[in-house]
């Protein structure tokens, strides 16, 4: 019995069969046919105000669920507006499906209205993309897209669908798993680590006197937080969690050193530098972690676990490369180490190393100068209070800049998938749409977006989406009237010559703007207003809330490894700098 349906019906049915419950999108000419069968579908559609918002919402959704977020937009300008979210998702390995409309196949190449070369433009910012050429191809291409986006190293996949392919009739057929795999002869991600390499890694771990577990986003992608904890406790080894891995290991755990890197804390940075063995689990030796590569962890041997073979040796040559899924590999590592210990082997004594590390922790806690009476509010203080008053399980999203670093530094992450940010691409304006996507996926959780005044002005219009669609999020705008991180660089490295970083102290009026978008707006100017404002925001659950904190524009993010320098040259907070010899 062959069933004839339109390509558009096939597309929506295929999404339903892939268990999609939410689509973030905005219709337009070429994608119009797909929006008709959507009316009859149980899939929830969130109508955004700008396509970039749909993309970041899909990312936020994927961040907190691990399931691919889906964005549906039209051709031309809608497709180009998706380039930033696609690139963002590609850099941070976020599973995402983006469906774009395209001009009819007969018009492709004629510079038709709202035509652009979507697959050409997005080729380098997607894990894969595909131009549909007939309605019959739709189910297979959708299945391929979900398979590719969610297996191996996750990433965004774009499907470009010409209008006639949506309108034409096709014979419905839902491909089997075998058909999908056969159609992709060049795609066979390896998930299981090589057993000999795992044994070698276990040997290095037991022999190391100064080990550090260097944990990246891959641990979260592999849903390996529990396994990681088992490994860390088994080998009693300190853990650093990169910006993408915050929450993969509890900050309150005695083995947790926090975030390393350009704005990491002194202990995490120094422990990596002095280590004799870095156990890299799903991280990629990003330049924001290594600083100057030639001086990075010079005495460390490297175990590198990554599902993407191309990450092995891309920046730092590993002594033991293990290609595989972090969860499966860590499980095998734990098993192998336990067997070796049961056979009478002993782990090297790391107590001297651990006391050295705790010495650094005592000397160099995260620090900021609390504000004196009459002084401007400190952004770090706001973050501390936000965390202190946050309901259990709160998800924190952030934009990009100083407020992002303060968030990572001063929030305490206790469970995985409670931190959503743009790490690799550094997309300003990420937080509000990402927070909306996260809230749609986890309506049971409180979702706070921490934003800067620069970031807020890039994507704030999505708060209208949040109000209309009844997705109550909370936004903390740390308003210092500056592009704060750029200002910090100009102060420190350009002799305080401030060029085009001053926004405006009075404009926009964030409270009025919030109210105009259907949100509650609150302005906070002094430390004593901070707690009541946050408590009020936390008590409002029927609409979104924007709290504007007027914060000290002169505040800088410390520690800081200046660009181009090695991690040994980390600049500490001025109040800690006299003790820096202690780090040598």
């Amino acid at each position, binding site marked *: 019995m062959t069933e004839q349906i339109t390509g558009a019906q096939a597309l929506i049915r295929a999404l339903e069969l892939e268990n999609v419950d939410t689509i973030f999108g905005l219709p337009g000419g070429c994608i119009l046919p797909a929006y008709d069968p959507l009316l009859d579908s149980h899939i929830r559609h969130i109508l955004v105000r700008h396509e970039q918002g749909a993309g970041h919402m899909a990312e936020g959704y994927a961040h907190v669920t691990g399931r691919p977020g889906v964005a549906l937009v039209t051709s031309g300008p809608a497709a180009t507006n998706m380039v930033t979210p696609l690139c963002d998702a590609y850099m941070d390995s976020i599973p995402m499906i983006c469906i774009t409309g395209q001009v009819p196949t007969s018009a492709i190449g004629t510079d038709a209205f709202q035509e652009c070369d979507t*697959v050409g433009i997005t080729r*380098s910012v997607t894990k894969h993309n595909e131009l549909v050429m007939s309605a019959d191809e739709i189910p297979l291409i959708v299945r391929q897209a979900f398979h590719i986006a969610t297996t191996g190293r996750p990433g965004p996949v774009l499907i470009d669908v010409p209008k006639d392919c949506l309108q034409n009739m096709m014979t419905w057929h839902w491909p089997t798993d075998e058909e999908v795999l056969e159609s992709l002869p060049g795609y066979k991600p*390896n998930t299981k680590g090589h057993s000999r390499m795992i044994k070698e890694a276990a040997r290095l771990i037991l022999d190391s006197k100064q080990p550090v577990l260097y944990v990246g986003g891959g641990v979260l992608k592999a849903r390996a937080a529990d396994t990681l904890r088992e490994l860390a406790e088994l080998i009693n080894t300190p853990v650093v969690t990169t910006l993408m891995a915050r929450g993969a290991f509890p900050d309150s755990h005695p083995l947790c050193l926090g975030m390393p890197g350009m704005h990491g804390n002194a202990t995490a940075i120094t422990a990596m530098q002095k280590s004799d063995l870095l156990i890299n689990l799903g991280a990629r030796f990003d330049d924001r972690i290594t600083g100057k590569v030639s001086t990075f962890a010079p005495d460390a041997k490297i175990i590198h676990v990554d599902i993407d073979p191309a990450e092995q040796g891309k920046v730092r040559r590993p002594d033991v490369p293990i290609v595989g899924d972090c969860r499966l590999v860590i499980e095998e590592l734990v098993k192998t180490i336990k067997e070796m210990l049961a056979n009478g082997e002993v782990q090297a004594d790391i107590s001297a190393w651990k006391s050295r590390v705790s010495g650094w922790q005592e000397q160099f806690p995260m620090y900021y100068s609390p504000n004196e009476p009459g002084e401007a509010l400190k952004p770090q203080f706001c973050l501390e209070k936000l965390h202190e008053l946050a309901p259990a399980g709160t998800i924190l999203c952030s934009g990009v800049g100083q407020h992002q670093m303060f968030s990572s530094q001063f929030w305490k992450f206790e469970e995985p998938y409670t931190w959503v940010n743009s790490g690799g691409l550094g997309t300003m304006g990420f937080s509000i749409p990402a927070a909306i996507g996260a809230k749609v996926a986890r309506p049971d959780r409180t979702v706070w977006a921490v934003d800067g005044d620069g970031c807020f002005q890039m994507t704030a219009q999505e708060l209208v989406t949040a109000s209309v669609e009844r997705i109550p999020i909370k936004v903390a705008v740390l308003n210092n009237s500056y592009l704060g991180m750029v200002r910090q660089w100009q102060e420190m490295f350009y002799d305080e010559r401030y060029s085009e970083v001053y926004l405006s102290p009075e404009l926009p009026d964030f409270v009025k703007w919030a109210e105009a978008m259907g949100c509650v707006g609150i302005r906070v100017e002094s430390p004593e207003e901070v707690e009541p404002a946050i408590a009020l925001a936390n008590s409002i659950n029927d609409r979104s809330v924007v709290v504007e904190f007027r914060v000290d524009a002169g505040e800088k993010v410390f520690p800081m490894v200046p660009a181009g320098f090695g991690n040994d040259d980390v600049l500490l907070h001025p109040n800690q700098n006299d003790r820096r010899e202690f780090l040598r």
Partner: protein
Amino acid sequence: MSMTPNTTSMPSHHILSVLVQNRAGVLARVSGLFARRGYNIFSLAVAPTEDPEFSRITIVVDVESAPLEQIVKQLFKLIDVVKISELDPRRSVERELMMATVRVASEDRGQVVELANIFEGKILAVGTEAITVSLEGSPDKLDDFEELLRGYGIVELQRTGRVALPKLDKEARTRPHKNGKAS
């Protein structure tokens, strides 16, 4: 693409034979990857294989532009790439085709014809003040021929980029990179 790698001594280039699914845009994916990652292509040739589902792309890469291992791994990340073999230049046969139009007065034409004969080339067209010749052979041989023609004044010259297969002697071998690790 202007320099020609030397094939006789230590290889200064790698030959990658890349089997891809024969689909729209696959060449753009491959060449785009080289451009984006800053790898240098000396030459590139594409054609369908004995199985029309697949095409073979022969890419000659400068050894110094990036570690070969990284290039191969990045190529594998392309979903349409099915298999990559590295052909050792010392253990493979390489061929290229060149066509050249040379400005030559009728009294000197005989010299060019003689050169073409020595190199086992072909005369494709003869005009009053120019002659078009073709030569198929190893890239070295083409280099030598091109050098000699230059003395006469080359009007136009076109080379195809090389294609290669492993030699059939005892030591013939390819190094297939099994595509079990793409991600």
